């Protein structure tokens, strides 16, 4: 039995745990067990049950959802086992009445919009493709192909999420495992710079804190949970030890821990520098060195602050150091439902995980040069294909100014600031609810989706495939290809 299978069997009975209570406290009324909408009292032919469906809202990708679907109303009326975020995900993704495609704000056919999108991408000197973390691997693969054909850049939301961790993986390496291994073995669980109670509610209850495992027969009682953060978040009640670090001092604290683990002397001003007392550090180091299996989960409190990839690298180096004493792994806690799939697909297609450019006809990777915030803020891109994300509300102002100036093609399930400014805007089906395909959980475990009901809108893969085919049909014959054929 795989780790994933094992978790599916056992990870569903813990919603009354401390973590779930913390989750409930964080969102009063939202975690009361109420399903999204009320299930019809008299079931009938139009009611369908989808067992072991997958929630793609966050990187936990919980695949133990039992969905009750009203096929007549085309909506999910109950999502058993879903957390507060998952319930909202399933409840709110219904079929909304709006055009499948808009060109310059006017209704257009999908075919017209596909042709306009292809023309924009072909005519651009520096087209960029961005987003992809809420889309299937199959759609991501086509998006990479489009970027390759039009010799643009492809980048995913990883670059503004755990992109710095991706850089650190290349520099430091990664001691890694699946979440199943964590569930079955970890007796020391450290969360650093993250707030799973609000961002990944079932990370505690399904994977890392409360579930009972092969070597953790008593669940949370057999684990020590440590939370390191700059503020006391709703995740703090779940932890046995809360360590409050001064803002912007994570790297110093991590490097101090490395020094202590390796028996080096540290200076007396460590508390003044990091906000953490020497005794607290000594206690944590003793626990890390004596545990049976340790895990460091790290969040964007490390990647989005001063130090960025150095912070992630310090976590990875600390975990590597600790393997002198016990099996110890470090895992980034990933945000979107298939952001891990985006890293995998872009890596297997190009050799690099994000921020890839095809301008010279072969893939090049350079964060800061080919990553989307930078390309837009410098005003270099002259067309953008944006898939399942909203940079017009999430990016810095300078980047948004460029987006307002250039032709944008948007694919999204709902109207956003990006779809509002887009030259071509497609309404698409929701992955996992309306379309099948493959997504990767945050620990790189691929999971097959089981859709609940059909959407009148095409999925990302269908639209992107149509755009790719139209580009291939419209583009002029390549001179270099003709030269290749003529070569002996």
């Amino acid at each position, binding site marked *: 039995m795989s780790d994933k299978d094992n978790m599916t069997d056992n990870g569903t009975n813990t919603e009354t745990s401390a973590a779930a209570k913390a989750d409930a406290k964080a969102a009063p009324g939202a975690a009361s067990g109420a399903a999204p909408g009320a299930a019809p009292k008299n079931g009938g032919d139009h009611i369908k049950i989808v067992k072991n469906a997958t929630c793609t809202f966050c990187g936990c990708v919980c695949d133990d959802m039992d969905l009750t679907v009203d096929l007549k109303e085309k909506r999910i009326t109950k999502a058993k086992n879903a957390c507060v975020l998952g319930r909202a995900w399933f409840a709110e993704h219904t079929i909304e009445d709006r055009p499948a495609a808009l060109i310059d704000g006017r209704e257009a056919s999908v075919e017209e919009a596909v042709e306009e999108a292809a023309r924009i991408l072909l005519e651009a000197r520096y087209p960029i493709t961005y987003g992809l973390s809420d889309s299937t691997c199959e759609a991501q693969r086509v998006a990479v192909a489009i970027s390759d054909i039009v010799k643009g850049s492809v980048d995913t939301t990883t670059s503004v999420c755990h992109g710095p961790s991706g850089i650190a993986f290349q520099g430091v390496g990664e001691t890694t495992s699946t979440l199943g291994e964590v569930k079955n073995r970890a007796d020391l669980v450290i969360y650093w710079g993250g707030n799973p109670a609000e961002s990944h509610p079932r990370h505690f209850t399904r994977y890392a804190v409360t579930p009972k495992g092969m070597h953790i027969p008593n669940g949370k009682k057999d684990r020590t949970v440590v939370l390191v953060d700059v503020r006391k978040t709703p995740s703090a009640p779940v932890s046995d030890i809360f360590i409050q670090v001064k803002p912007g001092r994570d790297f110093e604290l991590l490097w101090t821990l490395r020094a202590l683990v390796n028996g080096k002397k540290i200076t007396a001003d460590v508390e003044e520098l990091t906000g953490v007392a020497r005794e607290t550090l000594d206690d944590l180091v003793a626990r890390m060195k004596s545990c049976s299996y340790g895990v460091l989960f790290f969040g964007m409190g490390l990647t989005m602050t001063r130090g960025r990839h150095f912070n992630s690298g310090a976590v990875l180096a600390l975990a590597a150091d600790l393997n002198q004493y016990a099996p110890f792994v470090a895992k980034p806690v990933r945000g979107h439902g298939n952001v891990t799939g985006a890293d995998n697909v872009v890596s297997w297609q190009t050799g690099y995980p994000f921020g890839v450019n095809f301008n010279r006809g072969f893939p090049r990777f350079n*964060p800061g040069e080919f990553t989307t915030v930078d390309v837009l803020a410098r005003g270099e891109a002259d067309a953008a294909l944006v898939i399942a994300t909203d940079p017009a509300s999430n990016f*810095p102002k300078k980047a948004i100014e460029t987006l307002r100036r250039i032709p944008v093609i948007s694919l999204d399930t709902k109207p956003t600031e990006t779809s509002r400014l887009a030259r071509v805007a497609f309404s698409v089906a929701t992955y996992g609810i309306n379309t099948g395909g493959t997504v990767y959980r945050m620990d790189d475990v691929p999971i097959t989706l089981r859709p609940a009901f059909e959407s009148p809108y095409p999925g990302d893969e269908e639209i992107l495939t149509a755009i790719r085919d139209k580009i291939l049909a419209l583009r002029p014959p390549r001179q270099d290809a003709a030269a290749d054929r003529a070569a002996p």
Partner: protein
Amino acid sequence: MTLIPGRTSKQGTSLNAGKLKAEYLEVTSTVEMNEDDMKKMKLKDGDRVRLRSPEGEVVVTCRPKKASDLPSGIIFMAYGPSSSELMGSDTAGSGMPLSKQIEVRVEAVGAGEEG
């Protein structure tokens, strides 16, 4: 002060309903502040404050948090259009702007001063 934008449960549930809807916009336009800092600035729960960074400024609603939960000098708000308005675009060659460590000036907004 240092602004730390982040995820919250309400931000997560309301974005599913739609990012152009009133609930999401309200959730992402509310800032949490250390209660002692609020007292020093003569602010009370629900008052409007202007946050200024070198990149821009926004007016948001402030809510108190216990000093034991949110240290003095730190303010927190849910990710969204308001926090993006204050974020710089320099990624120091990494691709990542300093999204969770934004230095801002905080000032009270009197009645009739908005806009």
